[in-house]
């Protein structure tokens, strides 16, 4: 996977290391391709300007589309769990939080706004923000699927009160998820520090130098990464 090239007389070399499997990337985009139509067909019930689309036959079509997309949305993590259960388990473990994550959160603002990643504690394959996104997506999926299935198949079966609160929960989950999606989309396509993320999600690889700088615990392993981090801090305090 190593690439070489020549640009303005300088020889440059990028060493690529694998980050995501083909199945993971495919399912990521299946998730995207189900989430966007789900939001779009759900918004017609939410925004007054779109409400004419919810009426009559158009509304019936919206509800049918919502269900078709929901099938994809529900199936995607299930397929992942069946095809690559070890990878799924690995991700769940990598999404869990550690003490270092507090240090990351403290420095997150200057990292994202000013690009200062020197002070950031070394990160694993996912940084704290990505972990929060991952955990929130798992929680969101559970809430969406539970409330959605009750609304789909439980009408007249479950109590009216339970149905009503499922509507509220479905809306609440949508609102939080849409906010997260906006931030996720911006970071993926427009944030200058995050260009590697989109490359990884398209081609499954990360550049070694990017991984070393931003995901040191993954690249060097936790022990070596902490040594380098401590050394760098000492060096910075000496020079400062």
């Amino acid at each position: 996977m190593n690439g070489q090239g020549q640009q303005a007389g300088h020889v440059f070399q990028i060493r690529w290391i694998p980050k995501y499997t083909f199945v993971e990337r495919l399912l990521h985009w299946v998730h995207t391709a189900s989430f966007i139509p789900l939001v779009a067909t759900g918004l017609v019930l939410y925004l007054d300007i779109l409400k004419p689309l919810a009426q009559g036959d158009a509304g019936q079509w919206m509800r049918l589309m919502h269900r078709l997309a929901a099938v994809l949305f529900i199936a995607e993590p299930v397929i992942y769990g069946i095809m690559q259960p070890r990878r799924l388990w690995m991700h769940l473990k990598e999404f869990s939080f550690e003490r270092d994550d507090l240090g990351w959160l403290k420095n997150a603002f200057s990292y994202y706004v000013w690009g200062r990643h020197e002070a950031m504690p070394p990160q694993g394959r996912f940084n704290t923000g990505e972990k929060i996104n991952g955990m929130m997506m798992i929680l969101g999926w559970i809430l969406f699927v539970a409330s959605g299935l009750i609304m789909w198949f439980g009408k007249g079966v479950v109590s009216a009160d339970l149905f009503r609160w499922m509507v509220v929960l479905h809306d609440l989950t949508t609102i939080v998820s849409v906010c997260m999606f906006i931030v996720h989309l911006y970071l993926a396509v427009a944030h200058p520090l995050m260009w590697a993320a989109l490359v990884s999600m398209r081609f499954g690889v990360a550049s070694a130098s990017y991984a070393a700088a931003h995901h040191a615990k993954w690249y060097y392993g936790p022990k070596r990464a902490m040594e380098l981090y401590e050394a760098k801090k000492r060096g910075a305090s000496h020079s400062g």
Partner: protein
Amino acid sequence: MARNAMLIDESKCTACRGCQVACKQWNELTGWEYSKTVNGGGYENPPKLTPQTWTRIKFTELDGPQGFRWLFLKEGCMHCGDPACVNVCPTKALKKQVDGRVTVETDLCNGCGYCSQFCPFGIPKLAVEGVFTGKAKASKCTFCQDRTGNGMGPSCVKTCPAQALHWGDRDKLIAVGKKRVEALKTRGFTAANLYGEEVVGGLGRLYVLIEKPETYGLPADPRYPVAAIMWQNIVQPLGKIAIGGTMLATLVAWLVIRRNIKMEEVE
């Protein structure tokens, strides 16, 4: 415009069920759902409100010291003054008219069924064509919207031979109902009461009952659903602010950060 209402004097109802027939006839509702008659052990028929049965007489059997007797209740949409169904309907198929009638425009209905679930009385019914596709239409008593919208009374009121049903100005009918309750009390019906004057914004369907509402199976204290308030008055407006705020903040972040961090300098 003053509110119209239906006053149902259950002390006069003989359960002839002419109202059920008149309702089906005027609104062109079929009886096909009951082509196979089900014996429920009583004289009550049909057994429940359905998409094709918008009103029916519910029989409550009482066996007390005075011997066996029936209580009759003409079920149907209450036309609440504060109708949750109208507020949760995303299609405006359900509308509250200026005279208080809650009408249904079936063409606009997309079958979401929120009305059936948020109604404090569980009245609107959903004709489901497919559970998987979600294809459905909601329906309920409209007070014969095509009649009452043109100055006539609902067809059940017109047909009632016992004169248990009245249609007209709500305030006047409340006065009539209260007078009737007093008359009933003097004649030994001590539990007589007028149901629906205040609850859920004041009902458009008022009952003179000779027993407590609970005895008829009516909720004693029906409430506008808390979940509907939570959903539409809190979560949805806050959600718009949250989503709008996130978009704005992201836009600002984009404008600022693209100047702060040069992509070429990121390894």
